[in-house]
Structures are given as structure tokens and as C-alpha cells.
């Protein structure tokens, strides 16, 4: 098992290098990041030249890549292009935990509900529950995220106005004086609940459909029939013999989902004004701060690679055939 994990870790190194090359060259292909500054009449040629010098933008692109990698490794991505005093890492270090809190909150509940609904739908295929669950998951797929987010905001704002009860906050990450310790986290939960719910609806829809399909496939397999022929109680047949095998496809889907969401649920985070990865990316994209954008992309790529690694390790745990290959 340890060699398996180590080998997977080693595999991710070349993937990360490939990702950095791809990120650097495709972002560079967007054009000269200083183009707007150059035509700005308020800036002197010297100022623009200084920025160019400082970031080695006058060198050939391959050399630029070398400098970029060097800064990324030794100085944690260095400074943004336009604000030399600041540090990219300081921003990322602030927004990344916010996004992680949001994602873990929404995805863990989504997994619990999605798996539960999927398994039950499969066991009671074509039952009333199954039809209801199916209808709701299609609804979840079809519902635009921004619409749901706005509806939740309206609903909970109305509740507050009418009855003066604050169940969940509708924007921001914390109240003005959130307190500390347990009070801080209760307050944080009240702020993250609605955006998490927004993300959860789509995820539950997705996970429950996947779980239902793979459970149905497994439930008619020969080894489940063997388990029944042994005289096991039905609960043990489905929840032990079928369930573990049916989990394998879901591991892939949820790993991809986790990785992708680290990049920020741009729309949800923007609507709920969360200081997360999504708004950070959008702001820097609009101000054409290519260095901040590239740093953000590297973090996202690392997250995707990391979650794939976790998925691989989970596979090995669930399915012994993968462990030894």
C-alpha cells in the first residue's frame, strides 16, 4: 500500500510540471500584459519600462518561464504584476481556506445525501421514492445556480424582515463581531450555509444518479447473488457486498468535483460575496494581472492533482485488485 501511494505521488510530479508549462504558455499567449499600460497617457515610458524590467518581460519567453518558476518556488509566486509591494501568496492564503470551508461543508453533506438517496433508489427501483428522487435530481441538474442562490437570499432575507430571526446570513463570511472560538465557527456556518446549499443541490443530484446507476449494476451481479445464496440478510447483501463495489465510480466523480470546485464556485461565491478563490480569479483576470492569474491556476491544478491522488488511494483501499497492479 505504501509503495502504491509513493508511486502515485511520484507520478504527479511530471503532471505538475506539464501543468505549469501549459499554464505559463497559454496565459502568455493572451498577449502583452502591459499593453494597456503602454497606451495609458498618465504613465511615463520609464514606469512601464521598470515594470517590464522587474518581471523580465523583455526576455525571450522560455527565459521568462524560468524566472517565473524560480519565483514561484523560492518566493511563493512573488508579487502581482501591478502592485509590486504586495504578495500574491498573502491573498491566496486568505481566500483558499474560505473556499475550502465552503466546499467541504457542501460536498460532505452532498456525499452523505447523494449516496443515501442513490442506494435507496436502487434497492427500491421504480418505487414512489425512486420516482420522486429521480424528478428532484433532474430538477437539480436543470436549475441554474445563480437563480437558486438568489431565491435563497430572497427567502432568508424575507424571514429576517418578517420575524426578525437570523437563521442564515445571506452575504459575506462573518458578522462584524463574530467573536472567537465556537462563536466564530457558528457564525461562519450561518454565513456558509446558503452558498453551501446552493452548491449541494447540484452535487446531490449528480451523486445520487451515479450511485443509483452503479448500485443497480452491482446488485444484479453474480457475486451479489452468491451473497444471497449464502443466506445473508438482505441488508448485509446490499450494504456490504453491493455497496462497496458500487462506490468505485462515485469516488472518481466526487474527486473530480472536489478538485474542480477548489478553483472556486465563481458564481456562488460572487453572489454571496464570499472572499474566496472564485472572485479572486475574476478580479485579477479583469485587471489583467497575469502573475496572479497564473498563481491561481497553479493552485487549482495542484488541487485537481491532489484530489485525483486521493481518489487513487481510495480506490486502492476499496478494491484490492488495484492495490497490486
Amino acid at each position, binding site marked *: 500500500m505504501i509503495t502504491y501511494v509513493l508511486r502515485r505521488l511520484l507520478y504527479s510530479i511530471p503532471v505538475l510540471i506539464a501543468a505549469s508549462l501549459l499554464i505559463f504558455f497559454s496565459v502568455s499567449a493572451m498577449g502583452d500584459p502591459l499593453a494597456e499600460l503602454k497606451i495609458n497617457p498618465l504613465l511615463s515610458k520609464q514606469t512601464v519600462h521598470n515594470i517590464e524590467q522587474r518581471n523580465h518581460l523583455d526576455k525571450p519567453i522560455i527565459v521568462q518561464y524560468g524566472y517565473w518558476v524560480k519565483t514561484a518556488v523560492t518566493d511563493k509566486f512573488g508579487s502581482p504584476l501591478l502592485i509590486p509591494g504586495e504578495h500574491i501568496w498573502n491573498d491566496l492564503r486568505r481566500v483558499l481556506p474560505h473556499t475550502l470551508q465552503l466546499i467541504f461543508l457542501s460536498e460532505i453533506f452532498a456525499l452523505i445525501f447523494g449516496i443515501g438517496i442513490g442506494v435507496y433508489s436502487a434497492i427500491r427501483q421504480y418505487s414512489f421514492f425512486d420516482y420522486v428522487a429521480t424528478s428532484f435530481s433532474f430538477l437539480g441538474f436543470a436549475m441554474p445556480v445563480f437563480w437558486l442562490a438568489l431565491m435563497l437570499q430572497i427567502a432568508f432575507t424575507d424571514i429576517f424582515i418578517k420575524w426578525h430571526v437570523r437563521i442564515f446570513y445571506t452575504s459575506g463570511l462573518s458578522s462584524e463581531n463574530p467573536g472567537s472560538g465556537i462563536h466564530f465557527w457558528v457564525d461562519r456556518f450561518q454565513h456558509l450555509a446558503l452558498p453551501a446549499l446552493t452548491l449541494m443541490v447540484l452535487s446531490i443530484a449528480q451523486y445520487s444518479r451515479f450511485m443509483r446507476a452503479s448500485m443497480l449494476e452491482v446488485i*444484479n*451481479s*453474480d*457475486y*451479489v*447473488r*452468491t*451473497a*444471497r*445464496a*449464502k*443466506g*445473508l*440478510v*438482505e441488508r448485509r447483501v446490499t450494504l456490504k*457486498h453491493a455497496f*462497496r*463495489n458500487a462506490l468505485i465510480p462515485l469516488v472518481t466523480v466526487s474527486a473530480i468535483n472536489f478538485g474542480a470546485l477548489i478553483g472556486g464556485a465563481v458564481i456562488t461565491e460572487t453572489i454571496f460575496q464570499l472572499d474566496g478563490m472564485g472572485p479572486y480569479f475574476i478580479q485579477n483576470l479583469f485587471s489583467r494581472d497575469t502573475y496572479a492569474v497564473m498563481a491561481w491556476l497553479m493552485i487549482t491544478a495542484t488541487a485537481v492533482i491532489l484530489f485525483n491522488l486521493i481518489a487513487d488511494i481510495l480506490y486502492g483501499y*476499496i*478494491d*484490492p*485488485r488495484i492495490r497490486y497492479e
Partner: protein
Amino acid sequence: MPDPILSIKDLTVDFRTEDGVVHAVNHVTYDVFPGETLGIVGESGSGKSVSQLAVLGLIPQPPGRITSGEAYFNGKNLLTMGKKDLRRIRGGEVAMVFQDPMTSLNPVFKIGDQIAEAIHAHNDVSNKAARSRTIELLKLVGVPTPERRYDQYPHEFSGGMRQRAMIAMAIANEPKLLIADEPTTALDVTIQAQILEVLKKARDETGAATILITHDLGLVAEMADRVVVMYAGKVMELTDVRTLFEAPRHPYTVGLMDSLPRMTVDEEWLRPIPGQPPSLISPPPGCPFHPRCFLSNGRERCREEEPPLRPLGPDGHVSACHFAEELEGQQSKQVETPVEAAGSKG
């Protein structure tokens, strides 16, 4: 004669599919007596396995449906008994060995634990006792170094070894009836012989009555005491194994025998039964075998009247053919060397 241990009466099983209702098993009746080995032969889709799976409540319902019949095991009707009681019999008094050992074991659990689970399901024993019993069973079915093999996964076992493990699982609770559903079909010929030995040993060890479902007449000749021949979900002929090979009284049985290659004669061509197995959604009227039958020859009665199973002698030989008597005296071409010639697949 002693009371039968399993008595199937008028069993009918349907499957609802998009193309129509498949009549997989039609009014099947037969008995299994304690200690005997009953062979059930027939081509693919003749309802051999389904009749057994249905009795144990192992066909998926829906689409499957048992529309009529009774199945008495030790005097209790398996088809009407509660789920809980049926579960206690499954894997306990009645155990099953399946066709494909590659897919019949759960890939994510250890072999030993899967066998021990069968013990736990029917006995209140400690984990330690179940483990040592499992190792004993693995030794009995000829798995070498069972202590080490216990902790291995199915993918670390060869096909033959997996089937041994399946047999060990089946005899774990000393069943009174062992149902072997094509136990050697998925295996190499050399392994087939070994598994056969293990099955015989398991049968002798437990004294269980055995139902051997197969399309291999060689296996039947080797193992069975009595034989049921099935076609299109119906019983065509039922008799003891000697009579079946020496004096078959159903043209389908004769056809099966004749389709075997003979080792004693230099032959260029095999002699298959002409035509295709009938559709089970809309089976031919009258006798289901008449379109392929050499006796029928367009006789009206075969087309219009479904032949009932009728006794042909005092020894319990029954056949579902209007003209079974015409086969009298006409010996099967196989008869000179029934066992040797039957060594290959039917």
C-alpha cells in the same frame, strides 16, 4: 421409495421483457430423493438453472415471476414460506455452486472471510471458530496452504481454485441438498476433472442429495443417478442414467446423444440437431420440439396437441412424446460406449 427431499410440482416461471413474456419454465415437475444425484440437462435457455434459482427465491422479481407451482423441501413449500425462513434454508440446508467462479466471488473481500460469512450466517460461532472451520473446508476441497489462502482475494486465485472455494462455501453448513449449476462449464478440461472429484468428495462427505445442472452429457454419465432432460422450459424425459443412455424414449434425447462425436468411428462431420431452439416468447404450438423432430415428420398431432409427460415403464421412466414407443428397439448410436463417448460436451 423414501420421501423426496425436494419435490417440485407444476413450477412455472415467466420473465417480463420488452419483447414480451418469456416462458422460461413451464409446468415442471420432478422429485429429488435423499442422497441421490439428479442431473438436469438441456441446451442453453432450456430453463435448467432458472427452475432452481426460482425455488430458492434467487431470480430477480421483477422481471421474473413464479406464476404457478409448489416446491416442497422436507415437506415445507419454499415458494410460499416467509422471506426469513427461506433465507435460513439458503446456504444452510440447501446450498448452491454457481457456473462462473470468476464472477461469483466478491472481488473486494478476502476468500476466507467470504466463506466464514456463510458459517456466521447460520451459526452463532466466534470469529476464531469460523476461521478454523473455513481453513478446514479449504483443505477439504484441496486448496493448498489454506492458512495463507484464507487472507487472499479472489483475483489471486485461479479459476479452478475459485470454484473449489465456492464448493467450500456451499458445503460449509453441511447442506442436505447441493445444487451445482454448471460447475465446470467455465473451466479448462483438466480442471473440470479435478473439480468433479472435489464435488464428489463434497457430496460423499456431506451425504447431500445433489442436483447437477449441466449441458455436458459426459458429466451426467459420470455423476448422476437419474436425469431430467429439459427443452424450452419443459421436462422432456426423466429416467435413470443407464436407461437414458441405453434406451432413450424421447427424440430430443436421441438427438442430443447423436450429436456427440463418437471416438470409436472415423467421422468427418458432427450431427447436430437441425434448426434452432424455439423462442420462449412464442413457443411453437403442440410439442415444442416438433419443428426439429425426426419422428414428427409433419404429423398433425405433434403440431396440435401438447404431449403430456407419461410413464413408459414400471421403473419411473417418463417421456413427453406422443410417439415414444416408436423409439423402442431403436438403440441410440451412442449406446456401445456411453461413458467413454460422452466424454466431450453435448
